[in-house]
């Protein structure tokens, strides 16, 4: 009887120790729980989330418009074709399958930019709202990443020289202010990399379609 009670007690104590240890390990984790972020981090997060939610609201409104157009067009005829073609143009532009034009910024880069720096620059421009990007005549798609080749950087298997032009279509003011702000990507790169980056606004950028074949070989639609 006493032995059983002792075993039960020991089991209960062991369980309690385990639970407390789990709690302790969790409390040592990163401060990603919202309540543990600093006021500055929270403010930055609010700004970013508000902006992204605005994009989602806009996307939802657009998609509901498309839905209404499809419903109004009906399943047959020229109207349905027209709505479908417009949808195809939108998707193709989004994914880099067709050339696009518009306002944005142009970066003249010259120097020893490594693959990490170029990928960071592309990531920063995307985050700043760039809708379409091209490095010289290479249109940047989801799969396009800069890697170090035998003699130069490569994107989609195409060499990128020490001197190249990076074009980004999007809000010219928004893109420029993001990458040039103190602590932004350009001041950072200029501090650590031996390269010059000259950014300017442009009213008429023409970006080519990707030359890469984006058709998956093993991925299948999951309907």
């Amino acid at each position, binding site marked *: 009887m006493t*032995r059983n009670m002792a075993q039960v*007690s*020991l089991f209960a*104590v062991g369980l309690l*120790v385990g639970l*407390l240890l789990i*709690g*302790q390990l969790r409390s040592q984790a*990163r401060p*990603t729980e*919202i*309540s*543990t*972020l*600093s*006021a500055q981090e*929270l403010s930055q*997060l609010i700004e970013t989330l*508000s902006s*992204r*939610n605005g*994009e*989602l609201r*806009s*996307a*939802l409104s*657009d*998609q509901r418009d498309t839905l209404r157009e*499809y419903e109004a067009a009906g*399943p*047959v005829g020229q109207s349905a*074709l027209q709505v*479908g073609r417009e949808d195809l*143009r*939108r*998707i*193709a532009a*989004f*994914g*880099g*399958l*067709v*050339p*696009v*034009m518009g*306002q944005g910024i142009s970066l003249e880069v010259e120097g020893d930019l490594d*693959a*990490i720096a170029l*990928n*960071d620059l592309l990531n920063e421009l*995307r985050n700043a709202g760039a*809708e379409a990007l091209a490095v010289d005549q290479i249109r940047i798609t989801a*799969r396009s*990443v800069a890697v170090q080749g035998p003699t130069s950087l490569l994107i989609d298997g195409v060499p990128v020289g020490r001197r190249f032009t990076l074009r980004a279509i999007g809000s010219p003011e928004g893109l420029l202010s993001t990458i040039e702000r103190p602590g932004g990507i350009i001041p950072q790169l200029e501090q650590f990399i031996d390269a010059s980056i000259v950014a300017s606004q442009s009213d008429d950028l023409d970006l080519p379609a990707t030359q890469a074949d984006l058709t*998956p070989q093993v*991925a*299948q*639609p*999951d*309907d």
Partner: protein
Amino acid sequence: MSVMANPGGRRFRTLSTWGISIAVALAVVGFVGAMQWNSSLARDQFTTSAQQVLAGQVTDLEDEQDTLRQELATANAQVQRLQQQSTGSSVALEELNRQLAVARLQTGLSAVRGPGITVEIADSKRVVPPGENPSSFIVLVDDLRDIVTALWASGAEAISINGERLVATSSIYGVGASVLVNTAFLSPPFRIEAIGDDGLLERFQAHPAFIGRVAQRIDFFGLEFASQVSTELRLPAFIGSTRFRWAVPSEEGP
């Protein structure tokens, strides 16, 4: 001293053994409990009322985002259903719908399945030694970017991070210690799924983008890391804005 020779002594020793075990366990409970109490007190001191208000706003925005994403996914599905209904109505429409399906597949707007690999990375469980930077022991946004770069460069055809599908406009962005992918605020552990052909894992693990920085951080700081080959992964479609405001197609569709 024989146990058999003194049954009463055996009982005494048994009780003593249990007693000592329980006493030690209780001491551990007390120690761990005190550590937790102290650390929660320390956190509370830094959580001002202003922070609580801001944290509440973040939670509200995240809830709003969940709703928006669900509504957008529903609208996307409805559009695709209407397109599929019109298939067969005419040869031209049928061809157009085929092109739409291919374009969606190429650009990450379709859910996909196929063989591939899963990579998981999480913060180190090691206790941060005195004088060390605690941020070295957590997964940084650069780690995720390096992993994704290595995966694309190794031939991945589709990638998602914690269910966020990567597309041409996707960025992986750090806000303090937090990570934003597309519109979503993600927390560790980070689960990166990539569809690709045989040998993807070997190519990924040998790629300079992986071994250059993140593999060293895994070894040095004990970041939790695991990878696994799967015969079939299922990746969701991208949910977000696909309509450009500034870029205009300069020719007809593909």
